[in-house]
């Protein structure tokens, strides 16, 4: 599974568990425009840390704040690359 698949799968799973109806999760979907709320986001961060071992939110710049799902994928991608380096 690619990193993108992992993230999209986690978002869809959490949304389903939390009863948050979501539009199709595409790269240009703006997360804060959906019902995916702060608790969902917190769960996503924890779950991604469990699966990838990285938590890019724990030391990030404001400029890094992901807006779209594509930003989020890029953020995790950078964190995983950085750890591998």
């Amino acid at each position, binding site marked *: 599974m690619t990193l993108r698949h992992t993230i999209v799968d986690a978002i869809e799973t959490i949304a389903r*568990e*939390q009863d948050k109806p979501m539009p199709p999760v595409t790269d240009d979907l703006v997360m804060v425009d959906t019902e995916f709320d*702060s*608790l969902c*986001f*917190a*769960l996503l*961060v*924890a*779950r991604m840390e*469990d699966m990838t071992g990285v*938590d890019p*939110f*724990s030391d990030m710049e404001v400029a890094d704040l992901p807006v779209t799902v594509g930003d989020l994928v890029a953020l995790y991608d950078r964190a995983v690359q950085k750890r591998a380096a």
Partner: protein
Amino acid sequence: MILRERLAAADLGGLTLSDHRGRMPLADLLRGTATAPAAAALAGRSVLLATGGQMAAARAMVALDGLAGRMVLVPPGLAPEHVAAIAADGGVESVVTDEGFPEAGLPACVPRVPVEAACAAAVERSVPTEWVLATSGTTGRPKLVAHTLEGLAGGINTAAIPEPGTVWSTFYDIRRYGGLQVFLRAMLAPAALVLSDADEPLRDFLARIGAAGVTHLLGTPSHWRLALMSAGVSEIAPRYVRLSGEIADQTILDLLRTAFPEARIAHAYASTEGGVGFTVEDGREGFPAALVGTRAGIEITIRDDGLYVRSNRTGRRYLGDGAPALMDADGFVDTGDLVERRGARYHFLGRRSGVINVGGAKVQPEEVEAVLNVHPRVSMSRVRARPNPLLGAIVEAEVVLRAPGAPEEAASLKSAIIAHCRPHLARHKVPASVRFVPDLPLTAGGKLLRRAP
């Protein structure tokens, strides 16, 4: 009330005090004389009781009550710096000790009295001794709580004649509040008492108390959960099962009811600071709302969801320089326990200090654990804060399964346990993650260890 005088006035025929090494007649606790050399070193003094095992502590407690001015009980497993701290806070003038207690931490310039010498001592005219216990806080330096013997025994019906054949035991150490209650119940009845030992495997302890015919047994819910998981549980047949020291949830009460269908099952609300508040015997978690208010010898009130107790059973004060006040201006002790009323019953939510803050929403670990423990595969659980960059913390659960699962079912079982929580808990209280662990650590006091790791 003086222990020695109570025992001397009773028929002690055949009653014994025993541990994993051996047994002695209760009558042997009364051998002391006022002419013994140690009597002068102990009479009226503040005495630190620092022994390796419980048998020596039990014998010395009987000897020192009425003889020492103050008796400071050193609980087992205390770090040397904390032994030194409580010796200082307790204004200790003599140390009663034995070879089983490590020298490190004992105050240097204070006379040492061997346990055997202390047990040989008595006094012509007894004085009331102040009993001092260390709190079982999970972090930092323990606080010393001063009690009177009357206060410690305030929840015990000292006028009752014990049921014939009563044999007491406890998973606790008798130098902690819960265990001391059992020690005093046995001494004041009087009745036979079987002591536990920290180094004895649980299965061996259960076999030993089974063989000794123990009828009355006290432990924390965590002690009982472990016991019910042990093969040794088939060896015991208590008539009276008592729980204290932690919240007794419905799951553990039901498990005990199934394991011991004929037993009286009682969960007591008690603490080192607050004393014995009440005992509930209806087999249901929580306590009847009717217990709030004023009853004989005790007043209970709820303020800001916290439980407060005013009674002569509570500690009198904390000892030590700069110690905070134990009770407020009205004489009420804040127990630090949070409760919630549901219909005609109050339920415990946990410690005020133990809350997990999930983005401003509070979570009591114990509330989540109670839900987790209902799941048929879950034996026990510990809920803790997991740091989270978005909400500060989220809820994480460590779970001990009743029987280990196959590796390939781990993921689905975690999901099932989390799904089980959802209908019962607000969404921020539902564990974000579950980890399976082989066991969970208990404190020396038999409570779930809540601090790291």
